């Protein structure tokens, strides 16, 4: 094996680090979209209008068996055909946002289900308005179990961003592949990308554990 | 004097800062039936678990048939017991748990057949015929093909007793064997235990809150409080005419709870 440090530091890192920024941007933007779509999906799923809740349920199930690349390619090909021209970056955000909406909806639903029925009844007995019930009783209790799930999903989303290199979104893996195709050296760029992913995943996993612990101790104080 | 079967010598057990057993001395003779009673949290279960080697002890020695259990002799000195030593010593011991702890994925018969095959090295045929005998004895002969979840609590506990007996132990240890049972099934389990105490020569150490039952079958009652034996003697003394104030108070409370 020959590993070239000068190549690593002078060519690979300077070109991959901007890709890291794109990776982070895509992750957060698409996740914000997922949260919004997921919230609507969850509301539809819980709706008392039966066709709506069934449709939402089927959609969630359907999306969970669908590979993300398929969604990415679909939008990448479809949008121009129907006259919508987006930069690959935004197509990527859209694809990942839609893709992760289903798991977000499931996590949110799980959070609401974790609030005991008695809490709704208690609020009702106390004559709370709908707004107050949600704001002061339900949401504070539903948020806690939801945070670790959403956190893990965010990490998963982060790890899925390299798939966008298939449609030339200039994230880390795309940068690495470009370097490789120009220099015919795969070792350094791909290894650097792998290590960066590893570091960031471990780092964010620790971060989530901290948030989780913080939430736990907070509720213990509350009681 | 009868043969000494079990002996606790200055046994101390701590959980962190909490001393649960405080220099406990207790001796049990061969064939003797000893029942420990006492308030919740006094360390009754802990005594049994230390004997079963489910807990390690900080200080002291437990002997079975004169041989150290939690230590072993090596070059004339006592050293911490090896796993092999523990395994050999445990062959003499059998435990019945409050929550049965049957293996839920195995049938009643398999529950009683498999452990002796693995631990004693008996053949499957041998193990099966012995298990069937024991299941008949506890009145579960017709439920051999059932799974634990299909049985009532009392039935599960009787299977658990048969499973323990299948290991051919010399000492039987019961931790509140009827506490997890519905009132109407308690009798079927106590009658099995009673017959074991009366008709067989097992040495028995039991914890129970059923004072009348303990009175019935025990040779000796130990009243436990805060990790110590406060009072011990035949049931007629400890239960019917306790001398210690703490014992009187406990028995009064138990009587009121009825």
């Amino acid at each position: 094996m020959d590993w070239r440090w000068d190549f690593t530091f002078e060519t690979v890192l300077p070109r991959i680090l901007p890709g890291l920024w794109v990776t982070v941007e895509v992750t957060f933007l698409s996740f914000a979209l997922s949260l919004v779509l997921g919230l609507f999906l969850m509301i539809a799923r819980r709706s008392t209008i039966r066709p709506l809740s069934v449709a939402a349920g089927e959609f969630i199930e359907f999306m969970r068996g669908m590979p993300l690349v398929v969604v990415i390619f679909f939008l990448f090909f479809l949008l121009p055909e129907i006259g919508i021209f987006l930069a690959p970056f935004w197509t990527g955000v859209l694809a990942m946002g839609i893709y992760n909406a289903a798991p977000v909806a499931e996590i949110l639903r799980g959070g609401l289900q974790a609030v005991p029925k008695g809490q709704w009844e208690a609020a009702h007995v106390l004559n709370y308005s709908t707004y107050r019930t949600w704001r002061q009783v339900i949401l504070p209790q539903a948020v806690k179990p939801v945070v670790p799930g959403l956190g893990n999903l965010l990490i998963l989303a982060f790890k899925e961003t390299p798939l966008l290199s298939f449609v030339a979104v200039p994230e880390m893996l795309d940068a690495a592949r470009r370097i490789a195709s120009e220099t015919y050296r795969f070792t350094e760029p791909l290894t650097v990308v792998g290590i960066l992913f590893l570091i960031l995943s471990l780092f964010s996993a620790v971060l989530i554990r901290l948030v989780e612990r913080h939430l736990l101790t907070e509720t213990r104080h509350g009681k | 004097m009868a043969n000494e079967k079990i002996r606790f010598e200055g046994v101390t057990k701590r959980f962190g800062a909490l001393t649960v057993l405080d220099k406990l001395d207790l001796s049990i003779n061969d064939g003797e039936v000893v029942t420990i009673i006492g308030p919740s949290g006094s360390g009754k279960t802990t005594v049994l678990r230390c004997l079963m080697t489910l807990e390690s002890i900080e200080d002291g020695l437990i002997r079975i048939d004169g041989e150290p259990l939690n230590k072993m002799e090596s070059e004339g000195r006592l050293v911490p017991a090896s796993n092999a030593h523990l395994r050999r010593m445990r062959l003499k011991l059998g435990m019945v748990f409050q929550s049965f702890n049957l293996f839920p994925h195995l049938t009643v018969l398999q529950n009683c057949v498999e452990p002796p095959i693995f631990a004693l090295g008996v053949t499957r045929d041998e193990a099966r015929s012995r298990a069937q005998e024991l299941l008949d004895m506890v009145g579960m002969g017709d439920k051999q093909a059932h799974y634990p979840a299909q049985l009532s609590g009392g039935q599960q506990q009787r299977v658990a007793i048969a499973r323990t007996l299948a290991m051919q132990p010399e000492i039987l240890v019961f931790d509140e064997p009827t506490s997890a049972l519905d009132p109407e099934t308690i009798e079927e389990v106590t009658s099995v235990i009673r017959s074991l105490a009366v008709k067989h020569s097992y040495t028995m150490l039991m914890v129970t809150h059923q004072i009348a039952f303990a009175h019935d079958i025990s040779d000796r009652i130990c009243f436990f409080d805060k990790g110590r034996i406060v009072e011990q003697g035949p049931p007629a003394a400890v239960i019917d005419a306790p001398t210690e104030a703490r014992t009187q108070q406990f028995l009064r409370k138990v009587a009121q709870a009825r």
Partner: protein
Amino acid sequence: MSRSPIAILVPLAFLAGLYFAVFSSVAQFLPALLNGLTVTVSVAVPSILLAYAISLLAGLGRLSSIAPLRWVSVVYIEVFRGVSLLVVLFWLYFVLPEFGLTLSAYTAALLGVSLNAGAYGAEIVRGAVRAEPKGQYEACVTLNMPPLRKYARIILPQALVIAIPAMTNMTIELLKGTALVSAVTLVDLTAAGVRQNQLTYRTVEIFSVLALIYFCLAQIVRFSGARLEHVFNRHLGER
């Protein structure tokens, strides 16, 4: 989950039939997609088996009392959970030869997909074993069960049943992961679809068929998982 798969697969087959009737162009690209499907299945099936074996080994390794075994398992799990499957695939195929180990595209795909899923599976196995009630271990101690028997006969059979739903999800994720093997030059279902799309520009039809096939594959996995769980849970009752 408890819905009958037939109730789902039959209308799907019907829909697929409708497709043939309405869009005759389907006949144009379907053979290529089916070729892709055989590649997807031939990667997925052995990967699933391999991933299960790895999950078991690494999951138990992580719980082992032997420290080096534990370390190896932890490193493996953290690395493969931390790095994207796509990056792993590229690395196995393009970088590993630099270290003197050249893998065929198929082997690289198989290894990448199963090592990736195995890391998640290991955590599932670990969680399931740890969820085993303490009483089961204590019963094994008092019954003098030798350690190997204890795991093989008592702990694992119960833990693996608990793990079935999570393992089902892991298997579906693995299935989705096979859509990335075009990275190592294999033409799987997704790659075939993309190619056909570039030839025929039948985007909606092609991707509908793709989605339908992936959905059916996932349903098969779900159904098998639910069946297995039902069979093994029959006797366990409420716990």
